[in-house]
């Protein structure tokens, strides 16, 4: 398990992503790592860019293993705007190119690449937890 509090978070996306990816909880498999890294990048970027109106604020991130190492859990917490990331409808993938919106794909990618994406709002904080099965039972 690892956990770290980052403040400030402006311009710190890279550092936060590398902290999480360097966790001993991470699997070794390249294909899994690719999906986990992309999900982490999208979630971290959302918070760094949109959580705080003036861009000033903190983020606490961590990883843990559940079910005796079967499941990786990544948690991101911030005290920014109550942003309900999962309330947004998924993008309409059937639209022609002229009508596809530029943007809005980040959380959708997290939902597709991870097994579970769970959001809570608690004590004035957004808590986003992403889970991925990383080993066989």
């Amino acid at each position, binding site marked *: 398990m690892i956990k770290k509090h980052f403040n400030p978070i402006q311009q710190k*996306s890279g550092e936060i992503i590398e902290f999480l990816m360097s966790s001993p909880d991470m699997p070794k498999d*390249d294909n899994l790592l690719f999906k986990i890294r*992309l999900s982490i990048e999208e979630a971290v970027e959302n918070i760094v860019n949109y959580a705080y109106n003036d861009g000033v604020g903190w983020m606490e991130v961590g990883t843990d293993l559940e079910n005796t190492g079967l499941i990786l859990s990544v948690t991101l917490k911030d005290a920014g705007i109550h942003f309900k990331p999962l309330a947004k409808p998924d993008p309409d993938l*059937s639209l022609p190119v*002229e009508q*596809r919106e*530029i*943007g809005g794909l980040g959380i959708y*990618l997290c939902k597709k690449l991870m097994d579970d994406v769970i959001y809570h709002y608690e004590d004035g904080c957004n808590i986003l937890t992403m889970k991925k099965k990383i080993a066989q039972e």
Partner: protein
Amino acid sequence: MDVTINKEESKTIVVLNGRLDTTNASKFQQDIEPLMEGDNPDIEIDCTNMEYTSSQGLRLFLMLQKSVTSRAGNLILTNMKPQVKEVFDITGFSNIINIL
């Protein structure tokens, strides 16, 4: 990430090397901005050595595709790695961008 752009007579060839992520998406945007105008809209992007793309990168491919479509040109992405292709598949970008 390195971007090489070669303008040939009939089309423009772009070679991407490395990871397209949050740290370099704005640089890539600057690199491809000249391709979003002019009357030579056929573009081929060689993705052989493209290791990764985040939604920031996808956003730029969509902008480029929209620009090329509006000028009746063709955009082709070639030799994409399976992991990267999966990101294009999940987001439906494989349906709107020509990937060979």
